[in-house]
């Protein structure tokens, strides 16, 4: 009996992005299988965030071809798979004028999720006492926790962490580690990028990106 090959969650071939004449990411070949935790290191401006936005389907490549959950990036196919993707990025993907609880409620309503999970999720990330604080008035650490809460609520299969541990206390870093374990244990994958190699410990594979080019 032949075992079916495991389909990669992410498959890029020769993907590149150029803006204002500069190749931000160039000729990237990348496959990410379920259960992997892929670390990507590189100096500032090397293309880490651009690569992560490509994987998140939030950026269209100028060259090459790529699929995420089988959907071709840069096409309307990605609209159907984006719910499976969670991103903890530089800027919190939250509405600043809403409270933390309202943000979770907003996401739950848009994505048709079970709203009764909001309170348990807030308790998990330690924000139960600050749930009614507006995001704009919350500290950076609280905003990051709120973003993690939003991702917990959505329960994605592909988690993308962009310098997610930077500036966080031990407890919050522990939340990200727990989130990573949860995604992997459910058959998903995690991509984490950082300029600090210490933040990539525990990855199953670490790649390096320099001037937009990815290498092992």
């Amino acid at each position, binding site marked *: 009996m032949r075992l079916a090959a495991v389909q990669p969650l992410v498959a890029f071939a020769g993907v590149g992005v150029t803006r204002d004449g500069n190749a931000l990411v160039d000729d990237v070949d990348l496959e990410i299988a379920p259960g992997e935790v892929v670390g990507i290191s590189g100096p500032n401006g090397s293309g880490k965030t651009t690569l992560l936005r490509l994987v998140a*389907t*939030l950026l269209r490549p100028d060259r090459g071809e790529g699929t995420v959950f089988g959907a071709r990036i840069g096409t*309307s196919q990605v609209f159907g798979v984006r*719910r499976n993707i969670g*991103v903890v990025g530089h800027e919190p993907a*939250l509405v600043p*004028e*809403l409270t933390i609880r309202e943000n979770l409620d907003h996401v739950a309503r848009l994505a*048709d999720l079970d709203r009764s999970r909001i309170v348990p999720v807030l308790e998990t990330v330690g924000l139960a006492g600050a749930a009614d604080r507006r995001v704009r008035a919350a500290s950076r650490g609280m905003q990051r926790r709120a973003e993690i809460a939003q991702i917990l609520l959505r329960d*994605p299969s592909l988690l993308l962490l962009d310098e997610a541990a930077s500036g966080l206390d031990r407890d919050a870093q522990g939340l990200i580690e727990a989130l990573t374990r949860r995604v992997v244990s459910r058959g998903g994958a995690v991509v984490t990028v950082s300029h600090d190699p210490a933040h990539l410990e525990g990855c199953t594979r670490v790649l390096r990106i320099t001037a937009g080019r990815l290498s092992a």
Partner: protein
Amino acid sequence: MSLWRQAREVARVDLVVEGRVGETVRVIVPFAVAALLVLPFATGPNLALLRQVGMPVFWTLGVLFGMQIALRQSANDTDARRDLYALAGLDPAARFVGRAMSAAALLVVFLAVLLIATLALYDTPVTGDMTLPLAVALVLFAYGMAALATLAGEVSSGLRSRGALASLIVAPLSLPLVMGAAQTVAAMDRGTGILAWSLLLLASDIALTVVGVAVAGPLEESRT
């Protein structure tokens, strides 16, 4: 989740945010009312003339300031909020409809305040018979302007010349809306039929919604 439910949620949150930021009430309404005050100073105390130009001035200011309100609504999205919506699986068409609905709600309130100010300052004659057609024209005009400005905002999103381009799109395309609204009221005043003008407004609203829904996906795709 249906497009309609997602659109309602986008509109609800837009209005909550507007209620907290209060930009429309605090900035645009006072400016529009101040603009109403300028004309009587320019014409002098000619009450007959003011009565005559009251409604045309109202619709003109409605276009100019309404465009500002609706474009401001469509420009609300930060990159982070766009990412939030994309990853929450929000249908781009639902975002368009929701944004148009929230802008329309703000425009209705804005136009109502502006109308009251116009009636008071210009002594514009509006009889009881005109109330319903005027309200219908106002709501259809508000939705049309909101849909048009939301569409223009989406088309010009991310461009450096966004503000100028969006205004250039809205100004000429708002012509059927202004004609429909102004002529509905004028026809009522003359005692002639209003159906044709009301249908022009309705047809414009439907056409703008159909175009907005149809291009929302491709525009979202091209923006990534």
